[in-house]
């Protein structure tokens, strides 16, 4: 078995060439992404079940979410998806400095998302619109309003956790870009982090109308 690309230091011994390795890494990433989809599916199911059981409650309770802040966060996340996609493109066309700038922009946007989320959460904590047994708010008509907030905090909390993981991953590829480890020939880790970040965006695209925009 010949090692075709001896000069290419990124190819591990069990791959025959860089292309096979890159394809494998991307396939692995996609499979990981579907595990993420299935992870969230449990919470979406809980949402569907409880919304079907308490339609009035869900309509009444969602009015206490701030549509303005939700829309703002949607815009922030979509923009961050654009910046990371452009950042990876910059690596593809060998513009390292531009890539660094775009990755930093993505990080800033991600942090902005969390800040907005923090204000939303603290406002709800203040009012006692909390999940399960900590729910003390009294202004919502309908059966079991605490269930809406359980679902809300679980969905946005898990999503927020993924934002945090995503920020760590983006920081990692940012450092590797600064260290000049990527080139138009090899940038698989950046590509995979990009995929992950888009998935986080994709989940929010569904969370936003389901939680903030119930008719």
């Amino acid at each position, binding site marked *: 078995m010949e090692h075709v690309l001896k000069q290419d230091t990124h190819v591990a*011994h069990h791959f025959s060439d860089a292309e096979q390795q890159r394809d*494998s890494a991307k396939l692995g990433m996609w499979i990981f992404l*579907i595990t993420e989809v*299935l992870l969230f*599916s*449990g919470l979406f199911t809980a949402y569907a079940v409880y919304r079907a059981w308490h339609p009035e409650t869900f309509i009444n309770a969602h009015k206490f979410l701030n549509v303005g802040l939700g829309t703002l966060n949607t815009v922030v996340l979509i923009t961050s998806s654009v910046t990371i996609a452009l950042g990876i493109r910059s690596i593809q066309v060998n513009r390292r400095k531009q890539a660094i700038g775009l990755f930093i922009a993505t990080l800033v946007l991600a942090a902005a998302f969390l800040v907005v989320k923090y204000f939303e959460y603290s406002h709800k904590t203040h009012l006692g619109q909390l999940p399960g047994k900590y729910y003390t708010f009294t202004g919502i008509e309908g*059966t079991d309003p*605490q269930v809406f907030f359980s679902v809300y905090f679980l969905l946005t909390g898990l999503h927020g956790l993924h934002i945090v993981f995503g920020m760590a991953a983006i920081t990692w590829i940012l450092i590797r870009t600064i260290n000049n480890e990527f080139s138009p020939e090899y940038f698989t880790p950046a590509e995979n982090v990009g995929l992950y970040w888009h998935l986080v965006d994709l989940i929010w695209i569904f969370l936003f109308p389901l939680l903030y925009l119930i008719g």
Partner: protein
Amino acid sequence: MTQAISDSVSYLDEPKGIKSWLFTLDHKRIGILYMWSIMVFFFIGGMMALIVRTELLAPEQILVSADAYNQLFTLHGAIMIFLFIIPGIPAILGNYVLPLMIGAKDVAFPRLNLASWYVYIIGSLFAIYSLFSGAVDTGWTFYTPYSTQTSTSVTAMTLGAFILGFSSIFTGINFIVTIHKLRAPGMTWFKMPLFVWASYATAVIQVLATPVLGITLLLLIFERVFGIGIFDPALGGDPVLYQHFFWFYSHPAVYIMILPGMGIISEVITVFSRKKIFGYTAIAYSSLGIALVSFLVWGHHMFTSGQSELAAMIFSFLTFLVGIPSGIKMFNWVATMYKGSISFESPMLYTLSFLFLFAIGGFTGIMLGALSLDVHLHDTYFVVAHFHYVMMGGTVMAFLAGVHYWWPKIWGRMYNEKLARISAALLFIGFNMTFFTQFILGTKGMPRRYYSYLDQYQPLHAFSSYGSFIIGIAFFIMGYYLIHAIFKGQRVGKNPWGALTLEWTTTSPPPPHNFEQTPVVTDGPYDYDRIMIVGDERVYKDGPEEGKEIAKEVDSESKK
């Protein structure tokens, strides 16, 4: 094919030192790390089962208190399921032979593979911690609302199972990518050994189902720690929803357990029948069929839980579908043996045990899938017996068939065949004594998980317990001769069984990178109709003249 290389270094010898094992990226060594750790838990879980059975010899207390009994059967279940049978075949045998079978040097992501072992160890530490911090008495299913209320150490145990899920997902990702991307030249999808197909189907289930277990257990932990209320009726939650979530994973999970076992059976049965497998494509597709159907039937665990009538009927109907792909496999295996030259070495003995026991396990599964019957048999020993016929009679027998089949490849040494046959026979007898009795107990109305029982059940309970002691003896004999073989067994050549799959074309034990040169695949994995193995080398019956003559010679010799 490759020349015999007598002086090649084996993966067992090089590199040396404990560190080289703990940080190894070699799939074979990781398989062995998994083997030792999983065997420890198999031993612990087995001992717990023996204590439970001893306690059940009589209705009154013999060894342990009622509380300890509840914890013991829960831990027996949780340990056997999460720490032994789910990772068992994929992580030990799959890790070891899958890359060899497709002619790869390693799995696609060796670091992820090693990480999966460490994650397994971390998860198991949580399980052990829960053992010593109050244990768990919920049953391995952790049903709410009891699991959110009991003061036992449910949080640690479920956290352990949550972490173990990652280990399972890592293995699944690795296998799918390896099979897609790392097949040797010439190894087309339909030249892959059926064990690889089965592992592929298993990996698909691992990847699709395990995350749902993750979120379920996470919600359970949140329920206990933060009172989030999703499953708590007092807070507007629904405990039956927990069961839906749990079984959406755990029903496909029983196919994570059985599918790779079925793959092993497909391998062993054709090798020891010296006959091309019957219905290769049907078996390959039926693995994927089982994987698909496995996701549609979970509600049959919940017929008496309070789910709606409509849902129960739908799930009952869908459950019957499982019989189709499983039946396809059974018929094809039997047809493979038909007119083959069958030899009864120990791997084949386990395979035959499997066919017999799995048929019973499968049929009783269909019975339990029938809504009207299940309402009566639910939570009786009938279910316990069915489950053990499928999981122990099915998966464990297949696992043992695989262990005996690949043991000489793994260590380069052969075990004592005579002892192996004795323990296979003892296991078969002991197993049927233990669990067939439980079918009867179940139909007579003995509920599962009870510490004590009416006197009328005593003879059957005692008989079942005696059977379990025979099982225990069989496993001790097996442990002895298998470990003895590692150090003192007779050395074997490349291909002691005369099999045609790729792992038998390299040395036993294989060199660190599996093959001296990347194999190029031209033959099918089971072409026994035109190839035979003579002294480790392939002889083509339809090849040049010499081949035909050698074939005739060997044939006539074997007839003597």
